């Protein structure tokens, strides 16, 4: 079976020539993963995509009509970037626009993945929610503050959709490899090989040398092994590049956990089939004993305003801690009893000191001649964040720190306005596993005519 991935993320692009090469091989399925949680909780909470509309449309309008013409099932996973309802709707509109422009008529299965808060609350109270790490707990209060929960579907809902026999499957939040695993699992291929192959191709041609998420890739599934074939002649999939890929974004390259089971790659063998095609065998699958769904939740915790400025004064750089401490204290005092310091957060990011690594930064001495400074305020309302940031910014601009000689102004603002209202600030309120009897059941399929 030939499983083709368009790229690592829908909207990242791919060369037309790679698509054409793949189509010429008559793939059994074409997929694309539209989403990621890497860009953070904002997109899930705000209901928007982190890839642009025109980029997503481009990727779809070149490939989707070809798939429909040739009766090749076309699966989009984690629609709209985060796979919730607004994301699904956004992606659907793009598809409908393409269908109108190209006079396409087909049936599409939409798989919903957004879960109501009450469902999550019930599961929490029933003790069915398990953490995925030591530093994120899910409480009742977190559920109250959450704007949106999505559950990550596994292969089962996608298999159900494939069985309906539609032209396109537009899935909400999905496990990335499940997008590619669904059809081969349905057709009885070895799950160890299927999940491993799917895990590799879900990032597009990142498993090749040179690797990229912006190019197509083909997995050839056989009874006892699979092949990884780049569809661009400049790339090669070597045993090392294939083996190296399981390191990417994973805590352990030997054991990769999915909610529905675990890939055991401890006995996997990586060989060269040709000098540009890798052959993988020996990968095993251990189904989970308890059915679970991975859930993600995004909660809004305030509104953010930032001010960005540079500082080129060595005397100020020497006293930068005194400066930030003073600015913080002055702002607190300035707002007095009107706004309590516990109603907002103020952060200073000092690029040139420790903005990137914080207290992991091994170099303790500042050796740069300039600092890039971000003053950041997060508060209950945008107006409050704007007001507090403005006071902090003007205070930092004019503060007479110890040893100061530049009495006309401490900061170089690149822009007018100096302060930027960034809108709502979101955090992940949930990244947990929900235990349940049937991990496929909550994902409802809706068939629409396009």
């Amino acid at each position: 079976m030939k499983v083709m991935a368009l790229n690592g993320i829908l909207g990242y692009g791919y060369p037309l020539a790679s698509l054409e090469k793949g189509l010429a091989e008559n793939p059994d399925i074409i997929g694309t993963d539209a989403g990621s949680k890497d860009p953070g909780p904002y997109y899930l909470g705000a209901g928007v995509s982190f890839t642009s509309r025109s980029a997503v449309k481009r990727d779809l309008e070149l490939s989707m009509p070809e798939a429909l013409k040739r009766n090749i099932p076309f699966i989009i996973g984690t629609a709209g970037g985060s796979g919730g309802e607004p994301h699904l709707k956004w992606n659907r509109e793009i598809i409908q626009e393409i269908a109108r422009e190209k006079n396409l008529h087909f049936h599409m299965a939409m798989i919903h993945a957004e879960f109501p808060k009450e469902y999550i609350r019930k599961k929490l109270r029933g003790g069915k929610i398990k953490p995925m790490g030591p530093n994120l707990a899910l409480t009742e209060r977190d559920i109250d503050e959450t704007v949106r929960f999505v559950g990550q579907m596994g292969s089962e809902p996608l298999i159900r959709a494939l069985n309906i026999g539609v032209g396109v499957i537009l899935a909400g939040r999905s496990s990335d490899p499940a997008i590619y695993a669904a059809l081969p699992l349905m057709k009885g291929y070895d799950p160890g090989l299927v999940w491993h192959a799917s895990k590799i191709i879900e990032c597009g041609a990142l498993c090749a040398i040179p690797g990229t998420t912006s190019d197509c890739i083909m997995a050839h599934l056989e009874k006892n092994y699979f092949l990884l074939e780049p569809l661009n002649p400049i790339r090669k999939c070597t045993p090392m590049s294939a083996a190296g890929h399981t390191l990417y974004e994973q805590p352990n390259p030997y054991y990769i956990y999915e909610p529905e089971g675990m890939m055991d790659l401890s006995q996997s063998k990586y060989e060269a089939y040709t000098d540009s095609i890798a052959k993988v065998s020996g990968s095993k699958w251990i189904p989970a004993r308890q059915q679970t769904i991975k859930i993600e939740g995004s909660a809004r915790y305030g509104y953010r305003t930032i001010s960005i400025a540079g500082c080129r004064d060595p005397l100020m750089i020497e006293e930068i801690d005194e400066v930030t401490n003073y600015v913080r204290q002055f702002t607190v005092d300035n707002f007095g009893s009107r706004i309590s310091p516990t109603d907002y957060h103020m952060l200073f990011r000092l690029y040139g000191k420790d903005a990137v690594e914080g207290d992991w930064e091994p170099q303790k001495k500042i050796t740069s001649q300039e600092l890039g400074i971000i003053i950041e305020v997060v508060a209950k309302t945008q107006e409050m964040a704007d007001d507090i940031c403005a006071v902090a910014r003007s205070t930092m601009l004019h503060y007479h720190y110890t040893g100061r000689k530049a009495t006309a102004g401490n900061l170089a603002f690149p822009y007018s306005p100096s302060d930027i209202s960034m809108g709502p600030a979101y955090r992940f309120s949930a990244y947990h596993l929900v235990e349940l009897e049937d991990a496929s059941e909550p994902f409802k399929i809706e068939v629409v005519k396009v």
Partner: protein
Amino acid sequence: MPKLIDLAKVLRSKNAGPLYVTFDLMFDKKETYERVVKSGVINSKLIAKLFKSDEKYTEIVDYPAALSVKITIPRKVVGGDLGDRDVYGAQQYAPLLDLEIK
């Protein structure tokens, strides 16, 4: 003594989900990989010290198939949360750069 930044072909960090950050040290020669592993420099005690983390949650994996050593620790701040310095976790490996390998 050579430093890790000079010996490694790839030295990177990235989120492994929003709760963990994972570091990969990848070498292009078997001898270099084995030298690093044999030196014992990359151990959970050192990692816990460098990153002020709990040894209990530190995972170090030797992966000869890709001549790599992988280190995974919890993120200090959940991805994208207040005070996060690096949403993707892609620039957190500075403490590893200058580690000296016998």
